[in-house]
């Protein structure tokens, strides 16, 4: 199992540590030439979506990544990664990959004082610890999108075929079940 972890900015090391624990091999992607060869999946980590989106675009990585995702490569976006995947951002003009049929809202919980932890169900997984850091939410999801988690009525995790996105950060907890779920997607490809 070989997973490409985008390492442009943000908490990518935390994802690599979880994947290492689960026995997956990782490769950090910083420039276009890093994203060559074959991968079983891609992770778009948390951080600032404005920064990551800009670096993806300037580095000429947006197109090849979009093509790979449209070609069926499993992708897991957390927080900023979820924003990069969305077709529309309700409070921002930008669209980055735009492959996921969903409208997201950035910083939906406000500033850092609105950041919080909770425990909720994630699809088949019960009682998962969820960390929200200036997190987004899904305002709407399109057809073919399966809702995996809701917190206080808001959609905070969803899957559309080969695309998985969470508004929270499983990589900041000791619980590896959401990453195992994603590796399951990568394996079943």
């Amino acid at each position: 199992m070989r997973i490409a972890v985008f390492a442009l900015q943000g908490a990518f090391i935390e994802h690599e540590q979880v994947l290492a624990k689960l026995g997956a091999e990782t490769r950090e992607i910083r420039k276009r030439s890093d994203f060559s060869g074959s991968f079983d999946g891609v992770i778009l980590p948390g951080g600032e979506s404005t920064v990551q989106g800009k670096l993806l675009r300037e580095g000429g990585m947006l197109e090849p990544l979009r093509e790979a995702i449209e070609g069926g490569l499993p992708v897991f976006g957390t927080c900023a990664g979820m924003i990069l995947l969305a077709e529309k951002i309700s409070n921002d003009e930008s669209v980055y990959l735009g492959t996921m049929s969903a409208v997201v809202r950035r910083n939906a919980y406000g500033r850092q004082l609105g950041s919080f932890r909770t425990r909720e169900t994630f699809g088949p997984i019960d009682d998962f610890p969820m960390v929200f850091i200036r997190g987004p939410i899904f305002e709407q999801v399109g057809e073919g999108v399966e809702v995996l988690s809701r917190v206080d009525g808001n959609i905070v995790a969803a899957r559309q075929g080969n695309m998985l996105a969470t508004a929270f950060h499983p990589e900041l907890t000791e619980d590896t079940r959401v990453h195992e779920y994603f590796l399951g997607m990568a394996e079943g490809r």
Partner: protein
Amino acid sequence: MQRNERFELNKNLAQMLKGGVIMDVTTPEQARIAERAGACAVMALERIPADIRAAGGVSRMSDPKMIKGIRDAVSIPVMAKCRIGHFVEAQILEAIEIDYIDESEVLSPADDKFHIDKTQFSVPFVCGARDLGEALRRIGEGASMIRTKGEPGTGDVVQAVRHMRMMNSQIRELVSMREDELYEQAKELRVPFELVQFVHDHGKLPVVNFAAGGIATPADAALMMQLGAEGVFVGSGIFKSGDPEKRARAIVQAVTNYDDPHILASLSEDLGEAMVGINEQEIALLMAERGK
């Protein structure tokens, strides 16, 4: 919410800033330029360190109205500075819901003995440090992010380099110690034992560690990253230079591609005037000496 949980969330926000550049800005327009150029956060202040240095006199927290103007201009996290030990300035910054408070030696210290008890706040704090002892003392007081002090407003990276090397060599030394030597080490560093134990076990600080002070070029930023910084603050280096937007973009790229000399070479081309800078020996006031 429990205090410990808040501390974890605040450490987590710093983790999201890693691999990024935090830029000093003095107006909403500069904040927008910084965001557009790829800043992962901005530091809102009335005067950048180089101008504080030039103006002299007592330097205080910025006008909350001015900070709010910057806060409302961008979608990325916004930080602001309060004076060392000035817990009321910190209360004010918390009241206007700033994302991170920098208890900063760049401003005139309000207390020559005590730092702010940062455990009393919900908003996170970043503090400067020159060595491991200072870093762990600040963390013990509740800071959820550390940066080197460097020497702000000089465009001279020498002190940031010295502080980062010092911290990392002390960490390596701690890692190599026997368990029974850690108690004495905690005493020498004047820090809580648990923090010493953490560094011994993990080989790093328990919070994110950025570089700050005197970073003026893409090469400076990459140097700090190669020395082990997890991201950089750029203060005067951007808006005191000839072409701020271009330089800001180049520094952002340099932090991502810090170990690729070919990319760094092309980023360093044609950036216009860098800030003029002052050498360490020419400085009358060493801000890094404030607050130990």
